[in-house]
Each structure stands twice: as structure tokens, then as C-alpha cells.
């Protein structure tokens, strides 16, 4: 029920914005590269909010004038809404321009794709906010769902196939022996899990694996793993959840 008597209400929520990761401090080159991106997808970038990420730049000790970059971004139609990875002076400059500073997590829902620049690329920005579903062997069509949230797979994951989800991964079909499923978040398998399942691959120790029928070759959360040899009879072939507790993998039956 909406409380109509009060003036306002605070709710928790997430606001998605592309993150602009900079690799060079040359403002002219950055603007050129951005204009090129904009020309590829003008609708996507029109009035887009943007978070500026200076971590790479500062790693290389390349100083950047935050005032200049923000002015440039505003001029070509972006709304800079945040800064991360800046040094003290850069943070101060940003605050002066009413740009909030993000000092928190190491891993965010960044939509930046691709490796560090080997060619003359000054900024990298994906043209659409899709989850990069990296599939090295034989990719299963994994339709990118809403932002960096969840990847849903409805077909069987066969031996030799690999699926990578940058968020949570939900699989409705069986995962065969010799298949590999990986997620930065949680993994749910509402069927038989015979392959390898690795949750929290970027170190998220709170990630969990849920599966309907555990027969996995290997299960891992944030690097801690167990092979099928270590799976006890009690949990084998049962619906379980798997989580980390004091660096120990706990496999617990879901009643």
C-alpha cells in the first residue's frame, strides 16, 4: 500500500550506468574515441549517465584533469554521475563539480569489455549493455537478460560446453559430465548437475551453488573446491545447496 500521507519514502535500488574506463590521459584522443562510439550507437549514448573509472590510469601514474574530462563529457552529451579510482586531488575536483565518488568495491557491474588496450584505444565502452557470456568451447545460445543480472539457460549443457555468466546463472536443463559452468554470482541448476560448477569465480565468497541433483565432477566457490570423490553419499544425487563457511565448502541437503 502506498503511504499517501507522507511526503517521501526511501527505497533501496540500483541505478545502472555505463562505466568509462580510461587507459590514457590524452583528452583529445578520448573525445575522438568516444565520438566514434557515439556514431555507432547514437541512441544508446544519448543523454547517458556515465561513471568515470580512473583506476587503470592511476596505476600507470598518468594524471588526468578531472575538470577537463567532465566538461568534455558534458559537452558531447553525457551526464557524468560518478568517479571511481581517482586520487585525492581528482576526487576533490570531482566533488567540487558535484560528482559523487565511488570508493567501494573492487568489482562492480562494469559493462566494459575487452582486454587492456594493446592498440591505440584510449577508452573502451561496449555499445550495448549485454552480459559478456564468454564461451570458449561450444557456446550455447545464452540470451543476455536484463543488465548484468542473470543468465538463463534452458537447453542441456552438453559435455565440452562452457558457460560463463557475469552475474547469476540459472540452468533449467541438465549439465552433463565434461561441461563447465561458471558464474561470478550464484549458480542454480534445476536439474541434474554432472559437470563442473564454479560459483563466485571472481572471489565472491558469499556465492552459492544450488542444484536439484548433485552428481558434479567438481564444485567450487571462490576458488575453494571439492571433487566428486569428496562428495559424501548423503548428498550425492540429492537436492543441495553449497556455500562457504570459514573457507570450508559446506554441502547441505535442501529438505
Amino acid at each position, binding site marked *: 500500500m502506498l503511504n499517501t500521507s507522507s511526503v517521501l519514502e526511501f527505497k533501496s535500488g540500483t541505478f545502472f550506468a555505463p562505466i568509462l574506463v580510461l587507459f590514457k590521459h590524452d583528452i583529445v584522443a578520448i573525445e575522438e574515441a568516444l565520438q566514434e562510439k557515439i556514431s555507432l550507437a547514437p541512441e544508446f549514448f544519448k543523454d547517458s549517465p556515465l561513471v568515470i573509472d580512473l583506476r587503470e590510469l592511476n596505476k600507470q601514474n598518468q594524471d588526468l584533469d578531472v575538470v577537463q574530462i567532465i566538461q568534455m563529457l558534458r559537452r558531447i552529451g553525457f551526464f557524468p554521475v560518478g568517479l571511481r579510482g581517482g586520487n585525492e586531488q581528482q576526487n576533490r575536483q570531482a566533488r567540487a563539480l558535484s560528482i559523487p565518488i565511488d570508493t567501494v568495491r573492487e568489482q562492480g557491474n562494469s559493462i566494459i569489455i575487452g582486454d587492456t588496450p594493446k592498440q591505440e584505444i584510449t577508452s573502451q565502452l561496449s555499445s550495448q549493455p549485454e552480459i559478456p557470456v564468454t564461451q570458449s*568451447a561450444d557456446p550455447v545460445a545464452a540470451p543476455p537478460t536484463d543488465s548484468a543480472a542473470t543468465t538463463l539457460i534452458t537447453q542441456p549443457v*552438453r559435455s565440452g560446453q562452457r558457460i560463463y555468466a557475469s552475474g547469476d546463472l540459472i540452468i533449467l536443463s541438465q549439465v*552433463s*559430465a565434461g*561441461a563447465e559452468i561458471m558464474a561470478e554470482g550464484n549458480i542454480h541448476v534445476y536439474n541434474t548437475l554432472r559437470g563442473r560448477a564454479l560459483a563466485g569465480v571472481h572471489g565472491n565468497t558469499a556465492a552459492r551453488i544450488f542444484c536439484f541433483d548433485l552428481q558434479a565432477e567438481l564444485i567450487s566457490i571462490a576458488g575453494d573446491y571439492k571433487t566428486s570423490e569428496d562428495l559424501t553419499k548423503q548428498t550425492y*544425487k540429492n537436492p543441495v545447496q553449497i556455500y562457504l563457511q570459514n573457507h570450508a565448502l559446506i554441502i547441505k541437503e535442501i529438505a
Partner: protein
Amino acid sequence: MARIIVVTSGKGGVGKTTTSAAIAMGLAKAGHKTAVIDFDVGLRNLDLILGCERRVVYDFINVINGEASLNQALIRDKNCHLLYILPASQTRDKDALTQEGVGRVLDELSKEFDYVVCDSPAGIEKGANLALYFADDAFVVTNPEISSVRDSDRMLGILSSKSRRAERNEEPIKEYLLLTRYDSDRVRQGEMLGLDDVQEILSLELLGIIPESKSVLSASNAGIPVILDEKSEAGQAYADVVARYLGEKRPHRFIDGKQGFLRRLFGGRK
């Protein structure tokens, strides 16, 4: 337009060529103009199973390279006038196959034929990939044995991701299971995987179970597809497979032993 069927398995020696010969003959006997292509370039076998090895002049590679016309290379079967064989080259290797060339040959065949059966080589390399690339239907030939089932599972992954239908986001290849060399006695004794065990892993539409039978070897040696041996169980089983593929409902035979090896080992599911 022809329907293109690939007979595939991943693993070698499970009965792909025997199956290709049998179902191609079965489809032709049912009145459908059928071509069967040997994709095992360098290890030509299909012509032996079909008993036409002495009539091979031109082959698949000659046609791909434009050295012979399709009509020159196609061999009409002695037993059924609606069946044609396109043999593989014995002197070349799989690199002689090109996607463009295979596509061209299949296009040309599609105009004239009702069904084109592609007999895939073993493995997951070029020959096998090209045999399945253009397929509409896949017959996955599996032995009731754990490594064969694993390889079939791998093949199913490739079918669903590396075919033309997958690349074009079209309706996926229809996949059917053919369980060959099935010995219900050994299944009953727990020495062999049962149908249930195999289906637990592959979960495919079962087109038929071909029982282990001496008649398969003797038919191969005689160069007569086993489906023509109507007295043998294997021949009858293949006839069932073709009938089911063409839409007829026939109960499965030759299963018997339901108590499989895995089930015995680990106990039934709760």
C-alpha cells in the same frame, strides 16, 4: 527440398556407417529418393558396406573440386533404384573438404532427392563438423558403454552450437538416439549400460535399439545393408527405425533388461 540427415557419434566403431547404409536403404525402399554420402575422406568404407566398391570411379572430392559432375560420381544401388551413393575419396584427406564445396553438393542433391544421409567420420574434427553443419536431423549412434555415451553427449553440444541452423538461429537440428550393439543379456547381468542409464545422460528421442547381432558383420562383409536381412533382429530393428523416423508408431523391441548397470551400482533414485 531434401531433408538432410547426419549419422554421427563422436566415437569410432559404434556403427555409423552400418546405420547410414541401413537407413538410406530403408528410406529408399519406402519410396523416397535417397542419396548417402561418405564423409570419411581417406577411410572410404560406405561403398564396401553397400557393395558398390568396384563401381567407384569418381568421388565426393572430385565433385567438390569440379573434376566430375554429381551425376558422374553418384552410384546407383543394385538392390534399390531409388538409392544413390556418393563415395569418399580414399587418396585424399579431410582437408580436401570445404564448407563451400560441401554446401554446393548438398544444394544440388537437395533439388533431386527426398533425403540425403551424411555418414560422418568419427571424431570432432573437420570431416565430422562438415557432415553435421548442413543437417536438418541428426541420428546420434551410441553404444551402451560409458565412453560412447560421453562422446555422443559432446557431439550433441556441437550439433546445437556449430551447425548452420545454430549459426543462423533457426529451429535446431532434430536429434534422435540410436542405441546400437545392445545386448540385453549383458544389460541384465549389469555388464552393460541399459537404455535408462543412457537416457538419463542423453535424454533424446529414441528412434530405436539395434541389438548386437552376428548378421551385422556378415551383412557388412557381403556388402548388403543389414536392413535387407529381414530375418535378422538387427535388420528388423533398422526397419523399425526408418518407419518411426517416417512417422509410424511402432513399439520398441529388443530392450528387455531394464535393470541397468548404473542403477545397480548406485541404487535407484529416491
